[in-house]
């Protein structure tokens, strides 16, 4: 099954090669990545960590990137409302759209360059983002092989506290016209601080394929709050890879909200490379109808006294499936590791499915690792309590669903973004208004 797929990828690559910009990824590098893909093949549902994502849909997709539009037909008004204080950079089908962007002031200490890799930055990335050992970079390789553009962000030392930016990836293409490869390389220098919103939306309900790749390096004592929102159209196939390397004393906090797409898969791989490094991975997803939301989140503790906190809250209704596989590996010598996982799924439909799986691999003594995982229906006692106070059954159930998501949603510290997310969550749960706004 994969053999013909990689053969087709290679074919589409040849045909598209002349329009893949060398300034984004050098041709030689692209060729190497293609060779890797051809050798390894794309994952299939038989692969250990790929049981849930709907990979068969790939067979219907084109891999060559959508041809960039000469005349951008989008207006700023078509896009989600901007978040005050966050400079916006918009990419349409993976290509930077300056007309729809509103860049940062140059004094902010953050530079964003589109497709001009500074040599120094690329070396730092190469050195620091060495993937965790059992890494899965196949879709990231696909992304890099085909990328038309890349957002390269470099947050400099002494950046004002904190610099804030939003990357908006808009997909307008359909499956016939080609794929989108949103690409972000983030280099946060020592001590720098950054607030980053990353959103993926599609305009139009056509089926489409995007394979975003995000590569992040946090220097010593740097801190990043990264909010990722996936709100693709109902027929989209979205397969995403995020890789991060966290140096000594640095803190990376990732908040992921997954709402859209027919099938969405995130492969998150974080490596704590320095002592006292910290990562927080907090994810919510609400899947309905036939949607599949699947996340694989791997954190590797490669240095002592580093800390991980993983929270997942997923609701599956209709015939949807929500899966979260959270894996923590504690390497030899990573003593004093502190890792906590709390993974919970809520079944909101008789034919829905939840799969939450915490996994721990520990190769050292002296660690504190805890994990809890639950999957179940709404609690009958809680529901009865609310009904006994006169609440409509529907209201009571909604209230309990909100409460379930609250552990993660409450952590979103950008009020405007949180409100937008709450509204989207409400929409996804078939509510006209966010219940919380009513109350």
């Amino acid at each position, binding site marked *: 099954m994969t053999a013909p797929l990689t053969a087709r990828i290679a074919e589409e690559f040849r045909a598209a090669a002349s329009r893949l910009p060398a300034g984004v990824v050098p041709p030689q590098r692209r060729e190497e990545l293609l060779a890797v893909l051809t050798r390894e093949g794309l994952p299939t549902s038989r692969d250990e960590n790929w049981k849930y994502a709907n990979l068969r849909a790939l067979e219907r997709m084109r891999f060559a990137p959508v041809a960039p539009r000469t005349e951008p037909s989008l207006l700023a008004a078509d896009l989600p409302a901007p978040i005050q204080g966050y400079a916006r950079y918009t990419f349409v089908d993976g290509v930077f759209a300056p007309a729809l962007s509103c860049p940062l002031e140059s004094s902010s200490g953050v530079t964003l360059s589109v497709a001009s890799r500074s040599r120094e930055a690329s070396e730092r990335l190469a050195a620091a983002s060495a993937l965790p050992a059992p890494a899965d970079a196949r879709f990231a390789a696909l992304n890099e092989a085909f990328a038309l553009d890349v957002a390269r962000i470099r947050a400099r030392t002494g950046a004002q506290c904190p610099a804030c930016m939003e990357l908006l990836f808009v997909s307008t293409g359909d499956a016939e016209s080609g794929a989108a490869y949103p690409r972000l390389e983030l280099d946060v220098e020592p001590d720098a601080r950054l607030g980053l919103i990353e959103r993926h939306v599609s305009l139009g309900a056509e089926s489409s394929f995007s394979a975003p790749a995000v590569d992040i390096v946090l220097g010593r004592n740097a801190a990043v709050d990264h909010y990722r929102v996936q709100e693709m159209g109902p027929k989209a196939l979205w397969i995403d890879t995020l890789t991060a390397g966290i140096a000594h004393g640095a803190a990376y906090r990732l908040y992921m909200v997954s709402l859209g797409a027919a099938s969405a898969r995130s492969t998150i791989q974080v490596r704590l490379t320095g002592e006292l490094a910290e990562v927080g991975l907090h994810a919510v997803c609400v899947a309905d109808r036939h949607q599949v939301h699947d996340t694989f989140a791997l954190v590797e503790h490669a240095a002592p006294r580093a800390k991980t906190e993983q929270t997942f809250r997923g609701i599956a209704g209709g015939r949807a499936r929500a899966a979260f596989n959270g894996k923590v590996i504690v390497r030899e010598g990573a003593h004093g590791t502190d890792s906590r996982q709390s993974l919970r799924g809520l079944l909101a439909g008789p034919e829905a499915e939840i799969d939450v799986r915490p996994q721990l691999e520990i190769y050292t003594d002296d660690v504190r690792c805890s994990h809890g995982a639950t999957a179940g229906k709404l609690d009958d006692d809680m529901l*009865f*309590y*609310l009904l*006994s*106070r*006169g609440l409509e059954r529907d209201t009571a159930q909604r*209230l309990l669903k909100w409460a379930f998501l609250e552990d993660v949603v409450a952590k979103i510290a950008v009020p405007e973004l949180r409100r937008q997310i709450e509204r989207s969550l409400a929409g996804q749960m078939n509510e006209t208004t966010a219940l919380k706004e009513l109350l």
Partner: protein
Amino acid sequence: MLIIEDLHVTVGGKKILNGLTLEVRAGEVHAIMGPNGSGKSTLVHVLAGRPGYEVTRGRVTFDGRDLLALAPEERAREGVFLGFQYPVEIPGVNNVYLLKAAVNAARKHRGLPEVDAFEFLDLVRSKMKLMQMDESFLSRGVNEGFSGGEKKRNEILQMLVLEPRLALLDETDSGLDIDALKIVANGVNSLRSPERAFVLVTHYQRLLDYVVPDRVHVLVRGRIARSGDRTLALELEKRGYEWVAGEAA
């Protein structure tokens, strides 16, 4: 107001209530006592509409209407309130949200517009004062991390805000210190009126010193083994349930 006739209830195939008959009239306070496991909580749960109970015989009317035919939320809106023996914690659902949603549900039922936000807060604050509860409880999750006594006070707070016509209080006095017991009793007494009735499930005579009942019933093995006035509670305190149970058998 409430008429229970020959009520038989099984739970998980086990017979718990066994031909229970009881009438509570508007304005009355009834105390229900009885040994552990005799079916007191089962009775109030069945009245409030908790799922999982099978009524195999008998009927219950509330103001002439078939109570058992109503969904739990409808019973609440008709004015039935259950103060739980073990109030559940609901993290993430704000205490004040719940109160407001409950008040608005009742108002909607009566064809009234939603409560004004400021008036509502004033009302809640005044009731909290009566219950000697700190306002910080408002923004916490429902019963989340509350101590046993705080949970019970929170039940009474909800009762005061909702002003039910029939309050079923299941061991609201258990786990309360002496001061809290008086506070809870004050709360109950502040609602007593000719239109309202109370059913107090309790193990202790003490509560009945503060909330003086019109009738006291002893529940043994799923039926009322003896009824009397308040002196029955005193006698039970002295002689224990063996006395009633023996007589009933």
